[in-house]
């Protein structure tokens, strides 16, 4: 089975973010980047499917030069090849625009299966996978916890609200968006890191951006929904203040 995994490079989760001076995005100068966590689970699922069924895992990522570090990490974890779609103007492309350049790069690979995370940790629109499937004309299923290859296609376990699940059978080629937590993530081994240096990374140029359908006008710190009383002091002082609130206001002690 030939599996393509679309991954995104995002700011690290505990990064301190600051709004950029133009108010349209965050200040990127001091940020550290990493693989989007749901995409790490998509990669893990792909590697496990390959281990079970054989085949090839190819990782694909769109963005500026810096995203190649995330591709190298994926190669070190066990992906066979990487495709870097070079684009320095990701911010001016909307979901459809990004899905289009990913789909363009994937089409000629004729994959059996495309995996990606269910959403990104930065924009969180949660749509790139579904839009890619629509552009490629292949079936999709979202928020997937488990994937099983059957004779002719796949049987997947889809997560629904409130602890419900559903099995869905589907033909190949197909696209799945993977939920976090279905597998345990692996680390790159020293051997893997060494091997990654010999693996192929192909660079392709993204087509020019077209007019987006939606635009991000402004980013800003959220307004508080509640008036929060901050409790300060040493740990013991803070603890005493909380206990007082628990006794006299919340009344759970």
């Amino acid at each position, binding site marked *: 089975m030939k599996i393509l995994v679309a991954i995104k490079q995002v*700011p690290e*989760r505990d990064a*301190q*973010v600051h709004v950029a001076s133009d108010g349209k995005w*965050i200040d990127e100068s001091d940020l550290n980047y990493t693989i989007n966590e749901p995409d790490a689970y998509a990669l893990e699922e792909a590697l496990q499917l390959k281990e079970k069924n054989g085949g090839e895992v190819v990782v694909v990522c769109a963005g500026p030069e810096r995203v190649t570090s995330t591709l190298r990490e994926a190669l070190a974890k066990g992906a066979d090849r990487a495709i870097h779609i070079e684009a320095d103007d990701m911010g001016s492309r*909307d*979901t*459809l625009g990004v899905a289009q350049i990913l789909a363009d790069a994937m089409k000629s690979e004729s994959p059996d299966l495309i995996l990606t995370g269910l959403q990104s940790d*930065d*924009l*969180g*629109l*949660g*749509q790139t996978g*579904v*839009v890619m*499937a*629509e552009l490629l004309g292949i*079936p999709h*299923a*979202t*928020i997937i916890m488990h994937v099983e290859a059957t004779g002719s296609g796949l049987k997947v376990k889809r997560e*629904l*609200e*409130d*602890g419900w*699940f*559903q099995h*869905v*059978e*589907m033909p190949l080629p197909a696209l799945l968006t993977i939920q*976090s*937590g279905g597998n*345990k993530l692996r680390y790159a081994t020293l051997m893997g890191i060494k091997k990654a240096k010999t693996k192929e990374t192909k660079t392709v140029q993204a087509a020019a951006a077209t*007019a*987006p*359908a*939606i635009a*991000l*006008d*402004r*980013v*800003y710190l*959220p307004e508080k*929904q*509640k008036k*929060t*009383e*901050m*409790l*300060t002091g040493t*740990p013991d002082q*803070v*603890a005493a203040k*909380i*206990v007082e609130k628990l*006794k006299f206001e*919340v*009344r*759970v002690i």
Partner: protein
Amino acid sequence: MSGVLVVMEQRGGNWNRMSFEALAAGQQLAAKLGVECSAVVMGEAVGSLASELGSKKLAKIITVEHALLKTYTSDAYVAALEQVAKQASPAYVIFPHTYQVRDFAPALATRFHSVLISDVIAMHDGPVFVRQLLQGKLNADYRQTGAGPCFVSIQAGTFRADAVEAGTSAIEAFAPSLDAAQIRNKPGELFRESAQTVDLSAAPAIVSVGRGIGEQENIALVEELAKALGAELAASRPICDNGWLPMERQVGSSGQTVAPKLYLAVGISGAIQHLVGMKGSKTVIAINKDENAPIFEVADYGVVGDLFEVVPALTKAVLAAKG
């Protein structure tokens, strides 16, 4: 192209209650723009659901009935709604931000060369749609710039279902043209993993732990605090994903929804998926090292500090207070 169309969600003749929050959003958007609001309900037979909507203030209720719409598939829903949207030609299509909508609405928007503005938490004049970035660290204003229609999904709890305006409405049937050969996925029955043994929704006090705890062995710290308080132990998704606590202790959109007297959040940053599961809590106390963590937006009391210092001190103080 004009008007607002709200896509209601039902399964087996039962509404997804978030549909009415989307309906309230649709009515308010339509009122602001001075246009009409309509609703669409799809399924195999939706007559009684549609008549329930007859008492709402709507230009019309479009019923879309077909045997192939009995069980949800993205292929059938996208095909049917594409036909409805082409005929009704709305300027705005509003959805509740459910798992089902996340599965098909992006594909539907693609058919119109548009992009769904998903997970919206507020609407302002323009219209501008507000959604969160970076797990709630920042808000962002989005606007439609393409030809449209503009597709928007509304996060749970953003609008109140009881704010839906009453009035009258007429039912209009739309016959979609669907073919079994178009439907590629075969959906199975819904199931639950195992009987839930923990009912967090009944707990008067919950101590909940998040990513900030760092390691599995540190969970014991928080467990001791919960025990001292006589509270249930809960967690945000990453903790359950790691297998550090069972899935049934997860609070949030994919776990349980709780509204206890006390919700004490330890090392939880407060992504929207978590907040929707606990923001109904009477009192929220949050302990987090990051003063900008979104959990503080919904907290009554906040402590910016090292949980490894504050939590043991608090456990000791609670035990002392209880004598």
